[in-house]
């Protein structure tokens, strides 16, 4: 009997391994993963140095994992298995109740290089610079993490960053504010970023620092655009038992209106944009509801007649924050270093704007310098 059993084992394993291998090699390759919202690895280039130190095999292994047949199903099943077999951590994401938290936050690098870039920008700029370093969901809800996963808090990371920026830059403390509001719906459950309401709470403080009176909450009409939003943490954790989030839009019927909203890509081509791209919310990249497909520069003109101009340098935290500013400025320019292939000064002259607001998550600030805002 064992003879037959061994033969069946051999045949079934060979057929299974062979089929998966063939499918992995011959199935059409995607460059982008819709489920994980990231670029997939390209087939590694063969070079002597890569072959000599073995890095070619490592890259090939990554390529193999990224383009593995049925990757999405495998990773979802793997996440479910991992979180059931040991603790509730899946691919570096801790699953607590319905909220997901990034456990890699403690392993982030230093933000001093980003602080140097901010200092460099401020030194060569004639207007006032305001800096708001924003905590991610892990920073605000870090107390939900088990002890061994919270070694370096985002509070400390933000504090170190603020210590490093020069005195000429006016700091805005978002951490304390968001922490005190942590029992409210200020962060998505499946994303590291704040909700529209979280952005509004910070806007009230920021706009006062910029010299305006904030619009009261009651004047906004809030509409739920989609309740199927699954954020960046979900895409990493692949945890099917999490509930999707709601994406909101805050509008004012009797307020200032946007007269023009355009975007510019790295080639200088200008396209029409919208503050809220409701079509995007129906697709895979639902977060593009705010300002649409990401471009390095967005220019917004409004009916506000105070001739005040604001330059905003930010990351995805700023995407849903920008619409709140449109009630106070005639012109807002939003620069996104992540998508810019050339210097900010090649798009515009920052000195044309009397105020600059830098609004970035501490995760972005820990990724290194921001060369596109430095003077070259």
């Amino acid at each position, binding site marked *: *009997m*064992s*003879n037959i*059993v*061994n*033969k*069946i*084992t*051999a*045949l*079934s*394993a*060979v057929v*299974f*391994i*062979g089929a*998966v*291998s063939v499918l*992995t090699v011959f199935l059409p390759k995607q460059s982008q993963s819709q489920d994980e919202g990231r670029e997939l690895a390209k087939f590694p280039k063969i070079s*002597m140095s890569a*072959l*000599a*130190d*073995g890095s070619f*095999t490592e890259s*090939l*292994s*990554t390529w*193999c*994992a*990224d383009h*593995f047949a049925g*990757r999405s199903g*495998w*990773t979802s*099943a*793997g*996440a479910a*298995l*991992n979180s059931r*077999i*040991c*603790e*509730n*951590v899946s*691919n570096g994401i801790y699953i607590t109740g319905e909220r997901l938290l990034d456990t890699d936050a403690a392993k982030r690098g230093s933000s001093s290089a980003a602080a140097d870039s901010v200092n460099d920008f401020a030194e060569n700029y004639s207007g006032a610079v305001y800096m708001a370093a924003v905590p991610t969901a892990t920073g605000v809800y870090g107390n939900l993490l*088990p*002890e*061994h*996963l919270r*070694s370096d808090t985002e509070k400390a990371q933000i504090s170190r960053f603020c210590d490093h920026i020069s005195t000429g830059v006016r700091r805005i403390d978002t951490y304390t504010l968001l922490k005190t509001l942590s029992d409210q719906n200020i962060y998505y459950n499946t994303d590291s970023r704040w909700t529209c309401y979280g952005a509004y709470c910070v806007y009230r403080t920021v706009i006062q620092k910029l010299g305006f009176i904030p619009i009261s909450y009651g004047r906004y009409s809030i509409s739920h655009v989609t309740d199927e939003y699954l954020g960046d943490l979900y895409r990493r954790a*692949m945890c099917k038992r999490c509930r999707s989030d709601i994406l909101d839009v805050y509008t004012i019927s009797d307020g200032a209106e946007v007269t023009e909203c355009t975007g510019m890509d790295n080639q200088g081509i200008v396209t029409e944009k919208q503050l809220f791209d409701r079509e995007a919310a129906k697709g895979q990249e639902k977060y593009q509801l705010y300002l649409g497909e990401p471009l390095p520069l967005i220019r917004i003109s409004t009916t506000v007649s105070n001739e005040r101009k604001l330059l905003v340098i930010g990351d995805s935290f700023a995407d849903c924050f920008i619409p709140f500013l449109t009630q106070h400025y005639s012109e807002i320019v939003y620069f996104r270093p992540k998508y810019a292939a050339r210097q900010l000064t090649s798009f515009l002259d920052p000195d044309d704007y009397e105020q600059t607001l830098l609004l970035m998550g501490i995760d972005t600030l820990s990724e290194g310098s921001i060369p596109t805002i430095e003077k070259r």
Partner: protein
Amino acid sequence: MVYSSLLFIYGFLPVSLAVYYGIAEKYKRTSLVVLSVIFCGAMGLRVLALALVYLAVNYFAGRIMGHFRKKPPAAAAFVTASAFDLAALFMMRSQILSGLKLRLGFGRETVFLGFSLMTLSALGYLIDVWCSRTRAEKNLVSFGLYLLMFPRLIMGPIVRYETFRKIMRSRKADTETLGIGITIFVKGLAKKVIAGDSLYCLYQAVAQVDPSKLPVVSAWLGALAYIMCLYFTLSGLSDMGTGLCYCFGFRFPQGFNYPLFTGSLQYFAARWHTQVVHWFRKFVTRPLSSLTSHKWLRSITFIFSWTLLGCWYRFDICGAMWGLLMGAAIVIEKRFRDERLMKATGIIYTTILTTLFAVFLLAESPGNALQWLFAMIGGNRIFADSHTIYLVREFAVMIIAAAYASTDLFRKMMLRPSGGRFTGAVKALTPAIVMALLVICTAMIAYTGVSEHMIMRI
């Protein structure tokens, strides 16, 4: 490339099997050498170059020793090749040349492990040829297979050359052997991916805590998780190697024989990494013991051999301490063993001692080990805290399941004469169990494509 990666399981392995089973019988061994060279080259061409130099030095030293038979050229070849092997091992394992190693691309643990085992194989071969216990191998393909065969390259199995020669002669690759090989390989993969990696998470969760604030329960939990993780990782790799050897028709013995939770330290020693322990017994303990008839000197020799074994696992003072303590404890146990007491308390006493000694393998330094031991005996005056409760809650099922899997209870049940029906049902379900484990392991490594947590501090 490690065995527990998608690239190996769904890339290199099927291609290797297709080549090996598709080629004519007379070219099979050569094809396996070529595949092994490609596998070694995948770790880096520099690693391959060193492996080929290793092969050449030991092959030609063996030839010279075989030709001159204990004459001066044979002695010179023996000394030179042994010195080369030991120097290469020292370079691989010592921290002194760590910068150079990283520059040369020897920074990965699997490379260290592979070369450490290769050195034991090569040294054993040289000693056996010198002592005329085996003939010097003239066939470069056979010798190449002995040192470089890719299923043995990371964690063995290691055997003496004479045994290897017999296994090679009786090599038989067919569907049945392939089935046995795949079963053993998947068992090893499951040990590494399901048990080893989960226990690694538990050990890491405890290791993050400041040792001066470590509660008693956490410290014991961390040390127990470490020794179990070490067992599942090493035996998993060893089983994967043995299984792959079966797939290519080489029937090697398995490397671990359920050493944890045994009734005495002597049983632990006899079942832990049997081939490596056997190597040290054969080439270190016995030759040194034969020099003296004094019982206490033989005991010291035994302890010295275990200290060397400890250094083989971890090339520093902590590794030596682990070996020293294990060796000394086994000697004491042999001397004062009380059969009735051992029957009643053997498992508890063995588990306590192996867990305590494991602290020397897991700690960053001897000071850190003492801090950890201090926490284990309640020196921090904290029995358990909320973190301990969290760890017990999250990992309790895993620890109990892993503890059961690390004993031979299931095997005994399968071998029980009265268990005919049950045994038959389990055997009949083997293909389904193997496939289920393969699917589970694939899912668990799918995100990164590899499971490469190595618990050993190389």
